[in-house]
């Protein structure tokens, strides 16, 4: 319980600090916020009036609280480029992002963990070396390059899958695989080394001395122990997926939060950039927190003290 409370408090503190950081990062260097809202012919007096209305002349800490207050009341403002309601945008694009991210997250673990286990039980065989080589490749090939290669192969040459778009299941396959590639490669490596580390432990000998079969010793006991470090890094995997989504969504034209954020930064659409980066930061922090919860649930040494 103390662990849970500690992690939750930590999560809330991180959330608070990072919301401040994101706010300041975008607001402080956001250039003249009035430029995008007023015609070029506007006078300096007009701009000053607008600044006053927008609260830009208030002290910066006050602006932060004003902004957070508006967020909490659901008033997210409009996009500067197409005047769309940011609250509507975030729901629509957030849904797409969550579909893609969840697919990638599942792939990372449902593919990475079994492959890592296979490599560990076939240690130093052809299978092991094959899997590990694939995992090195998975980490060395940048994902945008992998994305282009897969579009070229599966969309242009073979014509099996669409190259871009949303949101048919068929259109989900390529982006999800590309988004999951590096995380899967890392999970394979980590699962393998965690399995091997636990295979060397004293209690494995005890279980064998009790007459348990290798399948049981490895498949149940060693695996259960190896799961702990894997789960403890699940939060990083979530963060990684959020980060790479910024690139993968752009390449595959998947209209998620990442694509909108990148476009907003490029078009200097500050209200959108500000809120969407805040959303992604919150997702990362919450992802880490969920991973902490999973770690707590999986580790009896933390559950009861």
């Amino acid at each position, binding site marked *: 319980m103390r662990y849970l409370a500690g992690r939750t408090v930590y999560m809330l503190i991180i959330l608070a600090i990072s919301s401040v950081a994101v706010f300041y990062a975008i607001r402080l260097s956001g250039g003249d916020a009035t430029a995008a809202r007023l015609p070029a012919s506007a006078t300096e007096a007009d701009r000053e009036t607008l600044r006053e209305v927008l609260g830009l002349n208030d002290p910066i800490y006050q602006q932060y609280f004003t902004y957070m207050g508006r967020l909490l009341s659901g008033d997210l403002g409009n996009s500067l480029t197409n005047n769309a309601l940011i609250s509507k945008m975030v729901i629509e694009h957030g849904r797409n992002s969550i579909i893609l991210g969840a697919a990638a997250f599942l792939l990372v673990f449902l593919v990475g963990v079994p492959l890592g286990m296979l490599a560990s039980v076939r240690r130093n065989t052809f299978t092991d070396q094959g899997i590990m080589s694939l995992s090195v490749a998975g980490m060395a090939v940048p994902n945008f390059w992998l994305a282009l290669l897969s579009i070229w192969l599966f969309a242009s040459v073979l014509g099996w899958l669409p190259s871009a778009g949303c949101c048919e299941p068929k259109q989900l396959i390529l982006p999800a695989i590309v988004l999951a590639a590096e995380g899967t490669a890392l999970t394979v490596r980590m699962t393998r080394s965690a399995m091997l580390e636990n295979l060397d*432990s*004293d*209690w494995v*000998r*005890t*279980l*064998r*001395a*009790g*007459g*348990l*079969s290798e399948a*049981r010793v490895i498949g149940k*006991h060693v695996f*259960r*122990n190896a799961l*702990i470090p894997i789960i403890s890094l699940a939060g990083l995997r979530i963060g990684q997926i959020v980060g790479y989504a910024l690139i993968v969504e752009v390449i595959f034209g998947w209209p998620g939060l990442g694509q909108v954020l990148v476009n907003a930064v490029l078009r200097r659409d500050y209200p959108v950039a500000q809120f969407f980066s805040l959303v992604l930061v919150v997702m990362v922090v919450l992802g880490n927190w969920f991973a902490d919860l999973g770690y707590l649930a999986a580790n*009896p*040494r933390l559950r*009861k003290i």
Partner: protein
Amino acid sequence: MASPLLSVRDLTTVIRTEGIEFEVVRGVSFDMYPNEILGLVGESGCGKTMTALSVMGLIPAPAARIAGGTVLFGDRDLVSLSERDMREVRGDDISMIFQDPLTSLDPMFRIGHLLTEVIRRHRPVSRSQAEAMALQALAEVELPDPETRMSQYPHQLSGGMRQRVMIAMALMLDPDILIADEPTTALDVTVQAQILDRLLGQQRRRGMSMLLITHDLGVVAAVADRVAVMYSGEIVEQAPVTQLFSDPQHPYTQGLLRAVPQTRHQRGALHTIPGRVPPPQFVPPGCPFSPRCSQALARCWEEHPDLVPENGRRLRCFNPQPLTPA
């Protein structure tokens, strides 16, 4: 004497590192009888644990393998038994207790789960029957509050309690043979005596045969019936316990006995055996103990002595001398 329960003959185990194989257990032979404790003593690195693991078929493959010899248990040779058949023997007919109770229990499962899993592996009983058996086994080793322990995780128990769990686990299926590898070394001195007491009580009550591996001569003198002394992968002397302690013949045995601090006698410098156990990759050509031996002859450097039986004792030495009081 009755016929032996377990009969080890010329057991040789090799380990392979960096492409070179070397023998860590060399031609070890001994018998184990019902209702008897055989002590196996020697410095660390002399092959005691590897001998035990070889008997259990638990040597770390593929680095290690049994290169020769037999381990007869009843009419079966455990060395040539299939892994599947060997699993039936392990934990049921022969069980083993390990040195470090802190790391020898899977930390992810409750005590009850660990015990019942082994029971149900060997006996066709229901979950609740297995739990009853496990509970009884825990009670027999006098683990306080066994019902609570069943639902606890290993980290919630002290080292002494965990070793009791290990003993209960090893004894709950009434094995014919128990191998205890340094069962008390990792424990506090006060707990050591309790654990040893539990172990002995259970051994006597069940008429079990026990192989007690230790470097603690005091423990051996107190509980063992016969003692085998190992050095550099082989048995150098074996005798009934009183004989071995009153009249040690091998210079190494004598050195071990002299090295035990004698509180009753004069205070002063502790005796030590000069030098150390040769690494298994580099065993001297003659008697392995010759470089450290104060009474080695020229012959000891060239010829490897055999283990010669002589009125109840077995001895591997060309030049035994009576023990001179230090």
